[in-house]
């Protein structure tokens, strides 16, 4: 069968969807993570439990929600709980397997910024939306996966503001802060996949999409990005994955 044409964004979403195992629980951020989580549920992970911070547990939307509180999430959920309950009873004790987050800026230790860029906090050059549920998702989920497009602007040596903690300043930080989850185990971008080096906790390149080189990834990274010894090439999207993804995208635009 011929390999279908696909965009780098589609490859990223497919790659992120594949990172979610069937049957796990996933706390889903809006945007790229939501698209990938819904794709996973529509393809290889039908028993994936989607949890949104609006209080919808086990949502099964048949189209992509535009926001984390769309009616389709409440109408298809196993349970709808209040916002204090979703954070206190469900997220905080460590019941959720994977936190699935986006980022405006991310650094080599996987710290995320969605608050301000440039200037200082009180007088920023660019004011971003802020934290939402992300700081506690990043702290308390058993593991975290970040989905973000890779650019020099977004992949920086140090984030301008730590909205959500990854590995802080390196080994020992999470333990010192009392963060119960393992932290970010993957950053999935439109070029490939990064994972933390077990010794330094600095993110290194472990997977590349077909046709992307290490140099391409390094040129779009603001730190001195290393490549893992066992760098693998990620399989391109299958026809089934692309069909499901494009079905979602089309229904979202209706």
């Amino acid at each position, binding site marked *: 069968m011929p390999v279908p044409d696909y965009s780098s964004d589609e490859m990223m979403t497919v790659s992120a969807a594949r990172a979610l195992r069937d049957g796990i629980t996933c706390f889903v951020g*809006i*945007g790229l993570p939501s698209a990938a989580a819904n794709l996973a549920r529509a393809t290889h992970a039908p028993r994936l439990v989607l949890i949104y*911070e*609006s*209080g*919808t547990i086990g949502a099964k939307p048949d189209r992509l*929600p*535009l*926001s*984390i*509180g*769309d*009616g389709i*999430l*409440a*109408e298809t959920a196993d349970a*709808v709980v*209040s*916002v*204090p309950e979703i*954070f*206190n009873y469900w*997220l*905080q004790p460590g019941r959720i397997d994977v936190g699935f987050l986006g980022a405006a800026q991310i650094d080599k230790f996987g710290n995320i910024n969605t*608050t301000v860029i440039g200037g200082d*906090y009180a007088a*920023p*050059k*660019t*004011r*971003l*939306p*802020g*934290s*939402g*549920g*992300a*700081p*506690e998702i990043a*702290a*308390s989920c058993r593991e975290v996966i970040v989905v973000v497009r890779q650019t020099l602007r977004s992949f920086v040596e140090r984030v301008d*503001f*730590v*909205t*959500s*903690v990854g590995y*802080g300043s390196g080994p020992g*930080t999470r333990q010192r*802060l*009392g*963060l*119960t989850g393992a932290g970010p185990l993957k950053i999935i971008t439109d070029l490939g996949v990064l994972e933390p080096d077990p010794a330094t906790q600095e993110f290194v390149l472990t997977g590349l999409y077909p046709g992307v080189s290490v140099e391409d990834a390094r040129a779009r990274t603001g730190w001195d990005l290393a490549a893992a010894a066992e760098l693998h090439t990620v399989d391109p999207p299958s026809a089934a994955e692309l069909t499901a993804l494009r079905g979602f995208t089309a229904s979202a635009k209706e």
Partner: protein
Amino acid sequence: MAEIVSLAEAVALAVRDGDTVAMEGFTHLIPFAAGHEVIRQRRRDLTLVRMTPDLIYDQLIGAGCVRKLVFSWGGNPGVGSLHRFRDAVEHSWPGPLELEEHSHAGMANRYVAGASGLPFAVLRGYAGTGLMAEGMASVRPITCPFTGEILTAVSALNPDVAIVHAQRADTSGNVQLWGITGVQKEAVLAAERSIVTVEEVVPHLDPRPGSVVLPSWTVSYVAEAAGGSRPSYALGYYERDNDYYVAWDPIARDRDAFRRWLDTEIFGMAETMGGR
């Protein structure tokens, strides 16, 4: 007992210049009609509290009603920025905007503390983040008296006024809402006064599984406002107007376009019951 009044009366009676006002509704049941009435009555120097400011606070900020914002996520969901909010923070237009910024978990717990009559709530949160480092008066580390563990305390939120939208009230002023109910119950119970706008006032509330009921004696004013959460949605009544959220972006990007919107859609209308 809640008084059943018009929306204009409710806002005139409950919301004063300089008040701390929480309009809640997590994507669902956002009280747009009430927010528009606050703009129309030209309230000033408000401290606005809301987890997700959404379009409604973008509009209030742009209209010059707001001195300070207490919030946890200030974006246009699924679309991008709130440009009136950004213009106020980045360029002090139409005036400077003081921020008190939190995470969702922190804000939710602050309302719980307020509703519970406690001065603070405890959670695992903020550790290592810039929000903690900003040294806000409302977030502090706290030591567990039983285990010695360091946790985080957030101060209670007790607004002067809470404003929420619900599906129904009965003629006695008992309020019923369902679907995603966010922090509305906590906000109303934490506040000194409250306004609940409803899709309809009915003679009798049928029990509904999973619904939240606010007894009449917990609410100050109930006002009927059919369509009162558009372009947000009211489960069982109408869907979210996703196109309006997209269409808001170019209006909010441009100060003149925003002024025209204010003149025609807010000041040009009598109380509209949420129509746009």
